[in-house]
């Protein structure tokens, strides 16, 4: 695989076209054969992190076995190979998001670092005293705290779009919040704790109507639905590799070239400079200006392999399959007495957050774990969402395209057991 030909490469795409075959997909994920406490693993914690297909694992191993070298500076064979693979992965991300230029793709540790980069670089340059940043009531802490830090430093204000009891943003209220002081809007595409798919296209249009740029937190959307940054016309978008079946510690920030161009560097160091003297440093061009130090080369190449994999399966097909699972799961869980779904928006991704009468989510999590079922219990790094719904925590089952209806049935059986223990 080279930068000139960074396409599907050595990835098996045997699952497309034709009807989606989940059994075949599962074969690609070695960890799904794990037994937990003697029972088959039912992995329903995909919003926290996703499992990795063999092609990603093999890519990581091959990189370290056959290609390991530093990028962008060697004149030797391995360094050129590693650089080609690394830059090839950038092109894959660019194509995957339908960005127009590789220079618009900055590799970061994950969505969190991407948001911090924009807050520290764009934010410090463009946001001052009395200015306002708009976020939503369902943001992950990673899309709250970096802006709070910035607001505190600059004397700016954070404004929050409220939501209704189904977990849908109140667009009228958003309209009212947009004003002459608004300097940036930063909202989540799919909520990790409620599953809501926000109308980001409309959110962006409304902000652009007032000349306000928009950052989209795509951590939960990019892995599960086609996301086209040019169609959305977002100014920034971040996502994490580990949630899209790739390695941890790698993610990407998309930014419109003119915005990135005008922004100061985020961190200083090697690779982000053109020349350094003790008197003056000239920064490198995009995207290297934002990639100080030796990057996560293996992770980046692994992310490229993950993107090849999901592209091979077909995002439209996996999206349709995940919708079917969500519908089935919603229907099965809704029929359980004493169970209440938290997050019932009309447009939803594969997240089923719920509470059970008289049972704390942590107890649900422990009993399900004993059945081999992995869910998450807690506030999901969205404490303001929990407060909005007046609950300390939820139990959350979150799905991926390798989950099955049988696994949903196992979840329902597990919940029945919880109810039995607590009756």
């Amino acid at each position, binding site marked *: 695989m080279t930068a000139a030909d960074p396409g599907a490469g050595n990835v098996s795409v045997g699952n497309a076209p034709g009807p989606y075959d989940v059994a075949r997909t599962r074969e690609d994920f070695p960890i799904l054969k794990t037994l937990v406490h003697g029972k088959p693993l039912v992995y329903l914690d995909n919003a926290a992190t996703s499992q990795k297909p063999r092609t990603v694992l093999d890519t990581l191993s091959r990189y370290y076995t056959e290609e390991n070298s530093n990028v962008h500076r060697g004149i030797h064979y391995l360094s050129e190979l590693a650089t080609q693979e690394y830059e090839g992965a950038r092109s894959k991300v660019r194509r995957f998001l339908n960005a127009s230029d590789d220079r618009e793709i900055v590799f970061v540790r994950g969505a969190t670092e991407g948001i911090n980069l924009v807050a520290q670089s764009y934010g410090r340059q463009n946001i001052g005293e009395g200015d306002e940043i708009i976020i939503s009531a369902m943001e992950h802490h990673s899309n709250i705290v970096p802006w709070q830090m910035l607001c505190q430093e600059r004397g700016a204000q954070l404004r929050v779009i409220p939501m209704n009891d189904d977990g849908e943003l109140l667009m009228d209220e958003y309209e009212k919040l947009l004003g002459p002081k608004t300097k940036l809007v930063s909202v989540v595409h799919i909520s990790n704790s409620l599953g809501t798919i926000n109308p980001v296209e409309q959110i962006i249009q409304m902000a652009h109507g007032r000349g306000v740029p928009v950052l989209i937190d795509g951590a939960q959307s990019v892995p599960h639905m086609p996301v086209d940054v040019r169609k959305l016309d977002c100014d920034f978008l971040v996502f994490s590799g580990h949630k899209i079946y790739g390695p941890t510690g790698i993610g990407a920030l998309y930014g419109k070239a003119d915005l990135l161009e005008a922004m100061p560097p985020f961190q200083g160091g090697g690779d982000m400079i053109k020349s350094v003297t003790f008197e003056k440093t000239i920064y490198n061009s995009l995207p290297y200006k934002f990639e100080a130090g030796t990057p996560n080369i293996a992770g980046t190449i692994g992310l490229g392999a993950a993107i090849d994999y999901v592209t091979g399966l077909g995002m439209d097909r996996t999206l349709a399959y995940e919708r079917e699972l969500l519908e089935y799961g919603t229907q099965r869980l809704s029929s359980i007495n004493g169970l209440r779904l938290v997050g019932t928006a009309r447009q939803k991704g594969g997240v089923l957050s719920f509470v059970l009468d008289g049972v704390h989510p942590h107890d649900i999590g422990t*009993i399900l774990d004993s059945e081999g079922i992995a869910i998450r219990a807690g506030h999901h790094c969205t404490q303001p969402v929990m407060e909005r719904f007046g609950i300390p*925590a939820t139990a959350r089952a979150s799905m991926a395209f390798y989950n099955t209806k049988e696994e949903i049935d196992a979840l329902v059986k597990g919940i029945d057991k919880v109810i039995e223990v607590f009756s």
Partner: protein
Amino acid sequence: MPDFQDLYQDMVMDHNNRPRNFRVLEDASRQADGYNPLCGDRLTLYLRIEGDVISDIGFKGSGCAISKASSSLMTESVKGKSKSEAEKIFQAFHHMVTRAPGTDFDDEELGDLEILSGISQFPARVKCAILAWHTLRSALEGPQDPATTE
């Protein structure tokens, strides 16, 4: 293999459903809040100290079955005890719930608290069991920030 039945024994569930000393002490001489931000367990602990002795104790709050049962059991075990006796029980309890799998613990100080010994098999739940004890220590030591298991 950890069995959740070891965790949710009848007596634990009984303390969860009917927590003892679950009340505000109007004449409390000490009070402390405990909070586990990870799962949202919260409790407020009220103590009446006479001389060196915890003469009365009560708690209010909400949380998982383990945190509630553990709070209830804690209040029963330290009522009427001196501060240093309570600290000794805490040490013994702490060792019991954090011990390595398959190792023994000293049950001399523990009494009913022993029913929570199964927690050592569930490392993710140790914090739930220990929150009440951290809060007790915080109350005994006097006014400060809420106790937390983080």
